[in-house]
């Protein structure tokens, strides 16, 4: 019975506006345009993990070999500390697949927005 519902949820297009709401969860440590406890998110898509000059990454993140994409972000955000043991992103993760998809859609959109024009 739940099969069709799950399929419908999975098939729903990612919602960047909803992702922007969800991004509030990240605001203790992250901002789009400047480094905080966590690194900035402008330029995230396509960036090699641990590569912003001057940011104090964990050795684990620097050595992770990850290049951030929708796919790698989805895996990381589900369980950051499992995906990169030793990361300083000590956050349990975003459990819900749709939440992650929307969040990533927002990050992709924000990266192309004026807020990230010079970052």
């Amino acid at each position: 019975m739940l099969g069709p519902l799950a399929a419908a949820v999975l098939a729903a297009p990612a919602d960047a506006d909803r992702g922007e709401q969800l991004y509030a969860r990240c605001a203790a440590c992250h901002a789009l345009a400047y480094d905080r406890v966590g690194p900035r998110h402008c330029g995230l898509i396509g960036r090699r993990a641990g590569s912003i000059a001057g940011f104090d990454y964990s050795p684990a993140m620097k050595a992770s070999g990850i290049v951030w994409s929708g796919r790698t972000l989805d895996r990381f955000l589900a369980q950051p500390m499992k995906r990169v043991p030793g990361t300083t992103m000590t956050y349990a993760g975003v459990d819900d697949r749709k939440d992650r998809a929307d969040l990533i859609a927002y990050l992709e959109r924000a990266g192309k927005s004026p807020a990230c024009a010079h970052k």
Partner: protein
Amino acid sequence: MKRRAIQLKRVYEKPSRDDGLRVLVDRLWPRGLRKTKAAADLWLKEAEPSPALRRWYGHDPRRWRGFRRRYRAELAHRADAMRVLKELRRRGKLTLLFAARAIAVRSRCERGVTRVFPQAQTNHGGKAMSSFFAIQNPNAARRLFLGHSGLLLSGAAVALLAGRDALAAKAGTSKAGDVRILNTALGAELEAIAAYQVGAESGLLQKPVLDLAVQFQGHHKAHADVLAKTVSQLGGKPVEAKKKYGFPLESLKNQADVLKFAAQLEQGAVSAYLGAVPLFANRDLSKAAASILGDEAMHWAVLRHALGENPVPVAFVS
């Protein structure tokens, strides 16, 4: 609810995972015992009989009753030590450790019974010893404890409590993981302190909002203080405040902007603590993080209220 017992053990016995918080109650460090071997979470020197009383007693059985009476009198004057023990017991299982000398323990959990345990046993564990001498003295015990109710632990004491995983630390990497979580939280708290400083100095805040900002900053300072102490307690190095934070000052033009900025930080902090609570190996740290989460959720609500928004927009935080 089942009351948790106090267990007594010689410090030379092998520590067990079931010991809970291990408190050494001898005045002198046990001879020939390394710190790591003792696995004591806390050393409470003040709980032991005074040297003068110990000399007087001299393990002479004829002086046993007198020793008990005098020791009780001494304990009545050591309110701080008893307060700490009482609070620790309230928080979980407690094991009192001693090397050789007689110790007395007052615990309301055991129906106000005051127990005095002489050295005697070595290899029989706490249970055998705790059946040795049980003296009914509920009135004295009750007086002692009720006299100091309503106590609040200092931040330092909370840090001490949180550092009870001396055993877990030896068992694996859980301590390093917990230190990392605490340090991430500490970094965010330090930034929040700096952010409120910017807000308070901006000239954009009018009373009473300004007072609120200063008060909330004070809470974040208290959080940072406890987190840093706990990191140290666990053998880690607390992160320090950055020399410079990249706050978007150009976007803060009036009081509402500052409030919105602060509300965002507090909301994010609630989510961050929520995401950290299930990660700690040491559940006391989860509890401590949840305690901070509650405080910062209140900040968030009050800031929303000050902005004219629904202060509590959802039934669950995420």
